[in-house]
């Protein structure tokens, strides 16, 4: 284990009374990594983050930051900074006050405080705002101040709890990029909680998908998108979500009624997979349409139900037989509800899951 781990979590359990929120959770986060905790509401993301921050006490297990066991350490002694969904800025203090409050409390010398606040303000480009109060800031500016509050404290690990979910779409996109840029600049470890998969995909070095207090998959965005470990992850990632078709895997050929799909080019998890009931998953954006259908390995057609033109591309909601089927087409595509649309599928970009335990085959 040559590589330094920034945060290590060992066998973490956390109960709220009878409710087990985290269950034997293990997680290693690399130095300088941007890790996103992604999961649906209530899956325990915030709880985990609060445990790392020391704001919640685990029922069992240990937490290490930079190799130091901080399980019992105070939040302020852990070398972490946290940015909250509501930002939790101190409303009656100026931005400068917000930034320096923690430092003053730690009895850092005046000059040093000054220096650090200015540096943080410079990095975040909020120098002109230093004497305003949070009430007079826009959402994005507040968010920067909240980050600044962690920044001045020179922490090893940044923790973010859905810092963008209160903002409107446009601002969210801008701030996402800013965060990413900040990470490139600071090279700190960042742990970021969200339930927005676009954020997860764009920001993360690695994504941890959580469900029911456990981690379902911990991989790069690419891997998670292209090779989801199980049907839950596959369904969770991607918008509109993956199309699933139930069928049979026989001799590495997926069959469902008329649809026969030899899985050539598909990377099976094990070299030889036995025959069984299986589910195939096809991402809407991987469906082949238009002229390219001719050359597609597998062909089928769907009955169009709803068409959503989105400018840059068009979403088509239809049915393949009795199953709903979504696909994403070019923004210029002209499709009408009620139309029969020929499509093509490339098995090498599909995902195959066991029908019973739903793991990837």
């Amino acid at each position: 284990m040559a590589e330094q781990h920034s945060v290590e979590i060992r066998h973490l359990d956390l109960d709220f009374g009878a409710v087990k929120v985290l269950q034997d959770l293990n997680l290693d986060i690399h130095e300088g990594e941007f890790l996103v905790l992604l999961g649906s509401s209530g899956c325990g993301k915030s709880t985990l983050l609060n445990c790392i921050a020391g704001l919640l006490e685990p029922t069992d297990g240990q937490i290490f930051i930079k190799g130091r066991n901080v399980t019992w350490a105070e939040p302020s002694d852990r070398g972490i900074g946290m940015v909250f969904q509501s930002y939790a800025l101190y409303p009656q203090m100026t931005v400068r006050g917000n930034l320096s409050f923690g430092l003053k409390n730690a009895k850092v010398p005046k000059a040093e405080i000054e220096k650090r606040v200015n540096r943080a303000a410079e990095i975040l480009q909020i120098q002109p705002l230093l004497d305003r109060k949070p009430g007079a800031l826009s959402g994005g500016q507040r968010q920067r101040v909240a980050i600044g509050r962690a920044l001045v404290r020179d922490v090893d690990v940044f923790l973010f709890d859905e810092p963008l979910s209160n903002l409107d779409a446009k601002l969210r996109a801008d701030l996402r990029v800013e965060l990413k840029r900040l990470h490139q600049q600071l090279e700190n470890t960042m742990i970021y909680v969200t339930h927005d998969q676009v954020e997860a995909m764009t920001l993360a070095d690695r994504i941890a998908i959580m469900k029911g207090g456990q981690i379902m998959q911990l991989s790069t965005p690419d891997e998670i998108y292209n090779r989801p470990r199980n049907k839950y992850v596959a369904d969770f990632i991607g918008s509109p979500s993956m199309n699933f078709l139930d069928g049979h895997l026989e001799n590495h050929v997926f069959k469902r009624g008329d649809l026969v799909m030899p899985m050539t080019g598909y990377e099976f998890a094990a070299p030889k997979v036995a025959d069984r009931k299986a589910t195939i998953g096809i991402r809407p954006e991987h469906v082949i349409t238009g002229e390219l259908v001719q050359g597609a390995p597998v062909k089928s057609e769907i009955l169009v139900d709803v068409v959503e033109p989105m400018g840059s591309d068009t979403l088509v909601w239809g049915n393949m037989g009795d199953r709903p089927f979504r696909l994403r087409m070019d923004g210029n595509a002209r499709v009408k509800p009620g139309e029969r649309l020929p499509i093509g599928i490339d098995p090498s970009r599909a995902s195959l899951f066991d029908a019973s335990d739903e793991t990837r085959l």
Partner: protein
Amino acid sequence: MSDIGMLNTVKAAEDPVRRRLDSGPRGARPKRALSRGNIILYGTLLVVSLYYLLPLYVMIVTSLKGMPEIRAGNVFAPPMEITFQPWVKAWAEACTGVNCEGLSRGFWNSVRILIPSVILSITIACISGYTLSKWKFKGSDLFFTILIVGAFIPYQVMLYPIVIMLREVGNTLGVQLFGSLTGLVLVHSVFGMPILTLLFRNYFASIPDELFKAARVDGAGFWGILFRIMLPMSLPILVVAMILQVTGIWNDFLFGVVYTRADSYPMTVQLNNIVNSVQGIKEYNVNMAATLLTGLVPLFIYFVSGKLFVRGIAAGAVKG
């Protein structure tokens, strides 16, 4: 064990030594029940509680003592010989003037005053608060401002003007307002109005406007929205209003004595008569028993509805 934390996670169940942990702190930080912070916290609370409970204790203890014992000992000593005589006397025997019926004479009067007063004052305040929050019109806030300033006027100052108003209005309408229960109920409603209206107004303001709009689109009118939408959601604030009014009206002496006749004096007038009638040495035990008896109704309501009270306050008072 190279890079993958994920392996840990997923395979944890199969790991034969899965509970192998590094030494060092683990799990929840051990807590001592008697930490310094806790001692200070609970210690202070207990001491402060004593301060709050002391008078109640004194009242109860004293009301159970005989007069000789009271004269001999201090107020805090527990009764050596418990007697309920003071309670009996306070309730049924204490004299004022020629009447020797104790508080019992005033109890039902108080109830008869209380119920219509509480109902009317809450009704008016509720409707006003509702109008002020959801059906504002030009100038409505001005009335409200005047009303709030009115909350600061000492009641005594308004005594004469109100007497005159009741007389004049009564004469105009051809009904007896002054000196009748109706008049008293009106007076209680008037003086309860500022605070209650404020509470209701703030509470209704905290109910989303969208709900109100939805009901209007659904064709509900002014009253329909109030009765079918707003009121069913208003339990906490109704409780607060009721508690405040019950306390205020039940404890009221001034209006009760000025605006009623001798045969309908409320209990507090009797209490005043018992407490302020001086026959030789003050009969403290009877006074205390009378005091406790008088306070019983509001106290009961407090003990029963404490939790709702905080909730209602949170909804009505805090959101300005």
